[in-house]
């Protein structure tokens, strides 16, 4: 029988002990003594969140296919466990072998959102691994970061030995092969890191020096080691239909956030919304073949026993074989008690038809993400959704029986005026008016519209990376103004308005576009007790503000500053394919409220074509003639 790291007494004292025992369905069991490499994969949030993440499942499967490697997992101990582990000096352990993380060769941490940064420090500290990479020795695991936040790793760069920039499928085997070779030859940690630095996509922060100007912006960002390249190119898996997919993913005992099979149908997004980081960093858009997806869906449902399957992508409606795939899933699995969970589809006749087959119309709601309240501002952000399309889609749905609508907006978008904010209320109201044009005898009671606003954060590698982020106070002001405008609407009783909190978003802004000087404040906040910042009940703004102050981090410098075109950004050393020149052109077009066609309409020459595949090579794809577009609009 597997031994557990924790005593019965500990496990029976804490909440949800199943978070710490491993042993789940499809867990890989190997003899740690019989492998050359021990890799511990970490999602720095609580188990139920981390277990829902597809990326880790892909890498877990890929690593464990290697006979010489045992990949295990660790998640953030919940606060009750954290306390006990400190009191009793229990070292953090991996779920599979229940062995201390400290004994592993690698600790790979996925960075999915900025607010998990203090949780990374918790993982390191509880493992007994020095917080700063510079303090680690030959006996410590190599700490690797990856995932979306590694596209600006600078605020946490000092905590990592290296970052893997891009998709994990491509370069890990080389990293592991080399590690094995270096370990056998008795070579040092530094020698290995120098070798890592030469692998495309790898960033070893210690091998770069940053110099700052007097005004606080970056003067230079240069390698200090001859093995480190000036620019790090993101990794992309170009053939998504012939690569690793976890056909037997782990199935947790306790209910995770994604208690279902997740089918990733494509990577990237053709839309080019100017606020969206994912839309830029995952270019070029690449689809998985329908045959591949059908097989994978079948295998995953049989190996997990899940009763639900959902599609994953940034914009499912753009997947070229969506209809065929969805109908296949309904026909093949619907009769076997499998629920088909559809992601937000663009509302059209097809979407309404399949939605009525798989959901209860009375209970389900339609979702639109106009993001902005007026057409002008939607043009600024290049969101190709028109009011006509929203009202038309909503009307079709109302006629088919739907009565609930959810609308997502952002406040604080560049160039936003009061009129744009008021536009959110007006649009919400227009949808309600549309509903009430249906005769009373025919319609289904009252309509319910839920509009919510989030606080826009400018992200690296988007056209808005130069843009000023509004302050929390400005955001709250806009929110109040909108709330008032909502009340003025004819159908205000049918509209519910909800909003995100400002404080945590301000911090996200700092981490999103921060530099290495922010790391001291993150460590200080952690030492002051900040943990699980993504959880509103644990988030402590005052502690963060104090940590910022004491460590010389000026929030306004990072958030409330319009950056100059010449400014060197902390993330400029990363080459995502999409060029800075393209992003700047897009920023200028945004300010002129000029839309840019999506990747399937015409190529805007963003730079991602360099990767040699994906949507960039679709037949008959013309190039955007920017002059022409400018004239038209």
């Amino acid at each position, binding site marked *: 029988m597997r031994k557990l790291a924790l005593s019965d007494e500990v496990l029976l004292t804490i909440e949800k002990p199943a978070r710490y025992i491993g042993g789940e369905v499809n867990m890989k069991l190997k003899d740690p003594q019989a492998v050359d490499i021990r890799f511990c994969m970490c999602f720095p949030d609580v188990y139920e969140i981390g277990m829902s993440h597809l990326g880790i499942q892909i890498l877990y499967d890929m690593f464990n296919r290697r006979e010489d490697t045992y990949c295990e997992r660790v998640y953030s101990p919940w606060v009750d466990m954290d306390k006990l582990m400190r009191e009793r000096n229990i070292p953090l352990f991996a779920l599979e072998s229940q062995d201390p993380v400290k004994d592993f060769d690698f600790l790979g941490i996925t960075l999915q959102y900025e607010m998990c940064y203090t949780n990374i420090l918790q993982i390191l500290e509880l493992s007994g691994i020095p917080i700063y990479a510079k303090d680690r020795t030959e006996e410590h695991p190599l700490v690797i970061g990856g995932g979306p936040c590694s596209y600006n790793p600078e605020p946490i760069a000092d905590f990592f030995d290296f970052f893997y920039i891009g998709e994990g499928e491509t370069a890990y085997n080389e990293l592991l092969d080399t590690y094995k070779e270096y370990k056998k030859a008795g070579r040092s940690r530094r020698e290995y890191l120098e070798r890592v630095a030469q692998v495309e996509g790898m960033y070893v922060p210690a091998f770069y020096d940053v110099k700052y100007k007097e005004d606080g912006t970056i003067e230079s960002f240069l390698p200090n080691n001859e093995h480190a390249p000036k620019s790090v190119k993101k990794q992309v898996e170009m053939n998504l239909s012939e690569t690793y997919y976890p056909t037997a993913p782990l199935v947790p005992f*306790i209910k995770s956030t994604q208690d279902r099979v997740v089918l990733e149908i494509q990577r990237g997004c053709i839309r080019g919304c100017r606020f969206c980081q994912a839309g830029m960093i995952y270019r070029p858009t690449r689809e998985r073949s329908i045959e591949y997806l059908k097989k994978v869906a079948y295998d995953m*449902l049989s190996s997990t*026993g899940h009763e639900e399957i959902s599609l994953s992508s940034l914009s499912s409606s753009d997947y070229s074989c969506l209809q065929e795939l969805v109908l296949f899933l309904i026909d093949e699995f619907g009769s076997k008690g499998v629920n088909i969970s559809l992601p937000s589809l663009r509302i059209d006749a097809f979407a309404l038809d399949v939605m009525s087959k798989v959901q209860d119309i009375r209970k389900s709601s339609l979702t639109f993400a106009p993001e902005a309240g007026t057409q002008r501002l939607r043009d600024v952000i290049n969101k190709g959704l028109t009011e006509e399309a929203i009202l038309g889609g909503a009307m079709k749905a109302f006629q088919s029986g739907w009565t609930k609508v959810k609308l997502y907006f952002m406040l604080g978008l560049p160039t936003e005026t009061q009129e744009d904010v008021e536009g959110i209320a007006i649009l919400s109201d227009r949808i309600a008016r549309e509903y009430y044009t249906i005769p009373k005898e025919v319609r289904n009671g009252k309509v319910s519209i839920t509009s919510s606003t989030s606080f826009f954060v400018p992200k690296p590698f988007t056209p808005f990376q130069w843009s000023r982020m509004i302050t929390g106070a400005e955001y709250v002001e806009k929110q109040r103004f909108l709330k008032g405008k909502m009340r003025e609407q004819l159908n205000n009783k049918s509209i519910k308005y909800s909003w995100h909190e400002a404080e945590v978003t301000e911090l996200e802004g700092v981490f999103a576009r921060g530099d290495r000087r922010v790391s001291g404040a993150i460590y200080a906040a952690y030492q002051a007790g900040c943990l699980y910042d993504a959880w509103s009940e644990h988030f402590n703004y005052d502690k963060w503000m104090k940590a910022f102050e004491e460590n010389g981090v000026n929030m306004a410098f990072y958030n409330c500053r319009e950056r100059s075109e010449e400014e060197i950004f902390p993330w400029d050393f990363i080459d995502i394919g999409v060029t800075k020149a393209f992003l700047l052109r897009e920023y200028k077009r945004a300010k002129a409220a000029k839309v840019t066609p999506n990747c399937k309409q015409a190529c805007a020459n963003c730079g991602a074509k360099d990767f040699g595949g994906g949507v960039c090579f679709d037949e008959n794809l013309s190039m955007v003639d920017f002059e022409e577009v400018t004239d038209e609009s």
Partner: protein
Amino acid sequence: MKARIKFQKYGAMKFVGHLDVMRYFQKVFRRANIDSEYTKGFSPHQIMSFAAPLGVGLTSEGEYLDVQLLSADTPEVMVERINAMVTEGFRIVGYRPLLEAEEHMKHVTAMSLVSSADYLVSLKDGYTIGAEITSQDSFVKAFCEFFKSQEIVINKKTKKSEKEVDIKPMITLVAYTEEEYEAKRIDTLEEHLKTEDALLNKGRHPSSAEVYENEIKVYMQLDTGSAANLKPELVLEAFCEYLGVGYNEYAWQAHRLEVYTRNVETGKLAALDQVDR
């Protein structure tokens, strides 16, 4: 058709709660391609019910799960198919088709049948219960004394109130060795089941109970179910109070051995896999 599945729950699985075990088995059955019956509607789910939910921390030799199937193989094949899909800590040890409820008869749920259960409670290594008790011999002596009392009154706490209850009548069997327990247990069974039971136990699966070096343990049969319910922990708590030593809830490992239904006419028991409904 209905069937009753009996399974062991042991090792690390004692930390997995009852509702999660339910979800777990739904996925097990899907992996094993069991032809379960589903509820109707937009989110169909398999029809199944547990006899007596097991608390977190307890292990078991015999948990019962009733399922509703559209078709099935022989019991042997069903056990094999399900066992091929469970992970360490669960093992299917029995499968018995049940009779369909007769027309106009109320559907009998496994839970409503339960009236009694057997437990083995052991002292975990590394824990003590006062200076006097150093071995199974001294434990047996003390426990016998304790059980001799006319009544064993405890403070039973419910959400709303606390009340004094005499739990002695709810303890229907006490034994200290496996042999003694088996002999006494047979006595509690209905006449016609005694031979069947002996036969069943011949091919019994290896016990899944944890074994401790200190060897201090007690077997008990306790009232269980909706009419009267006594948890083994409460008996040990009363025992510690009797001894005048502090009760440590983590010191004891309770292991459920069997779950029964009582024949109201004879007052005798039948294990849930010895009945057809």
